[in-house]
């Protein structure tokens, strides 16, 4: 017995280091490729080349890593809290709320004020979380089925809001909004990257703080309660955490689906362990996936940038179907 346990502790640390290394390699590749090819000598002498690298490519790649980590961690948190492997910020309506807020703000012509669309998107995500949580909450108890159904209904409502907002939009706004809805990392600034980093760091601290409680939820709420876990408090904090970081991610990158659903699944396929182990591995996995997807989006077809959300969906659908088959 002892060798097994020691080995597994050792391999957790190794796994984190390994995934971290893979992430760094993928980031290095992402920074080195793009529509403009940059050589070392150009970087040494050419001001424009340096600007492309430091002002455009680097923040974009770092933002992709942070948004990927955020979406994956939010998915893991929702799956753990709801004890449902299909739970995901998109299914719960949180991203829908953010997108609806952004669409309305764009239709009202607020796109000309820098940052305002993002703030409204963020407010939309927060409102969606509050709504989905209140709809599903009953006598201090949150029922997972009700929560998922509430998310479904809210998503339908947000779709209606988005369609109406689009019908009032001018042609230029419409293009901007569409690009936003498809998910895009174009034009991400260092400031936005910093915002994402702050939200991710805060969420990781809160989730790590509750990790020993969250890992007990896998055995059911009654079981967790009998073991001294303050279940309702942990759930409320977890949902707030997952929703706020999702809102932050959507407000910067637009709607990118499937990351929150896929990454925790893929990580669990390799590491079938509890929440404390899954949390860092999922963050690293999500970051790697989105940076890799962004590379493909930029270089797959010359002179065309593919929408990254379409790529994650193309990647996600077959994988998810195979996961479903495996589960059945």
């Amino acid at each position, binding site marked *: *017995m*002892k060798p*097994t*346990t020691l080995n597994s*502790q050792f391999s957790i640390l190794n796994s984190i280091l390994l995934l971290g290394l893979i992430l760094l390699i993928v980031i290095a590749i992402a920074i080195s490729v793009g529509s403009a090819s940059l050589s070392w000598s150009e970087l040494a002498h050419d001001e424009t080349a340096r600007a492309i690298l430091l002002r455009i490519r680097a923040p974009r790649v770092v933002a992709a890593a942070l948004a990927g980590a955020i979406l994956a961690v939010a998915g893991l948190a929702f*799956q*753990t809290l709801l*004890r*449902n*492997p299909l739970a995901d910020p998109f299914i719960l309506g949180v991203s829908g709320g953010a997108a609806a807020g952004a669409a309305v703000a764009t239709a009202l012509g607020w796109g000309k004020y820098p940052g305002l669309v993002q703030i409204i998107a963020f407010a939309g995500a927060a409102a969606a979380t509050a709504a989905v949580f209140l709809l599903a909450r009953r*006598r201090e108890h949150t029922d997972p089925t009700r929560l998922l159904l509430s998310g479904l209904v809210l998503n339908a409502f947000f779709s209606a809001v988005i369609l109406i907002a689009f019908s009032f939009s001018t042609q230029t706004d419409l293009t901007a909004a569409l690009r936003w809805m498809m998910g895009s990392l174009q034009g991400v600034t260092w400031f936005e990257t910093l915002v994402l980093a702050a939200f991710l760091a805060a969420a990781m601290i809160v989730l*790590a*703080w509750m*990790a*020993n409680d969250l*890992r*007990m939820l*896998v*055995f*059911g709420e*009654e*079981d967790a*309660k*009998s*073991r*001294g*876990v*303050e279940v309702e408090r942990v759930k409320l904090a977890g949902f707030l955490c997952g929703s706020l970081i999702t809102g932050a991610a959507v407000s910067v990158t637009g709607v990118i689906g499937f990351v929150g659903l896929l990454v925790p699944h893929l990580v*669990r396929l390799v590491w*079938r*362990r*509890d929440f*404390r182990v899954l949390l860092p591995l999922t963050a690293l996995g999500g970051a790697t996936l989105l940076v890799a997807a962004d590379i493909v989006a930029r270089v797959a077809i010359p002179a065309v940038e593919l929408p990254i959300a379409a790529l994650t969906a193309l990647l996600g659908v077959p994988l998810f179907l195979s996961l479903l088959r495996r589960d059945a």
Partner: protein
Amino acid sequence: MLEVENVSFAYAESVALRDVSTRAEAGQLIALTGQNGSGKSTLLKVVARVVAPSHGEVRFEGRALVEWGGREYARNVGYLPQDPDATFSMRAIDIVVSGRAPFLTRFGWEGEGDFAAAAEALEMCDAGHLAARYLDEMSGGERKRVFLARVLAARPKLILLDEPLSALDAAHVQQFSRLLRHIVDRTGSTVIFASHELNWAAAYSDRVLVMRDGALAADLTPAEIMSPEIVRDLFGFDARTVSSGGRTWIVPEV
């Protein structure tokens, strides 16, 4: 060690417990029987602190339940829900060692002592060979033993088991009943288990509590419950007794 005093509990629409009073002493194997919906599960949940009673008080080792810290109480009292399961499959040893969680500090990880306790609990449940197996590769009986081991891993003084014999075939019911007796005899813990397997409950336990309509209807010795009148009165079916091997058994009338 455990005192239940005038405890009542009501779910949204229905009363589940009515003025239940009883006590349990250390080292007893107590069967909690009664028809479906008689309040067995709810009584166990109240004692396990899963739900708070609407009236009355439960005291453990002389202190009211509300005076105990959640994790402190969990170090002393273990609870096995009716259908223990994990949303995501894990190795048996990881499941069992999670039973040590009430002993961990906030950012703490299980140490060698915790894994030793988990391995010992698995051995006691005759499941040591399952340690490295994953939950989704196990039979129903194996899962039950792993989850029982998870409760035992905390070495609680009071063990509450909700229907541990349900969904088991006859061979496993026998094995599990013997296991419960073995746990009480070996650890000196008190075990209270809900069951409607009347014969098995009586065969191995020291006391049989019978619930009816949310109230404690009877507190009997295993010998006393083996009576057609009591069975008809408390369980609502016609039965006769058969003596075999120096024991009396309840057999339903056909």
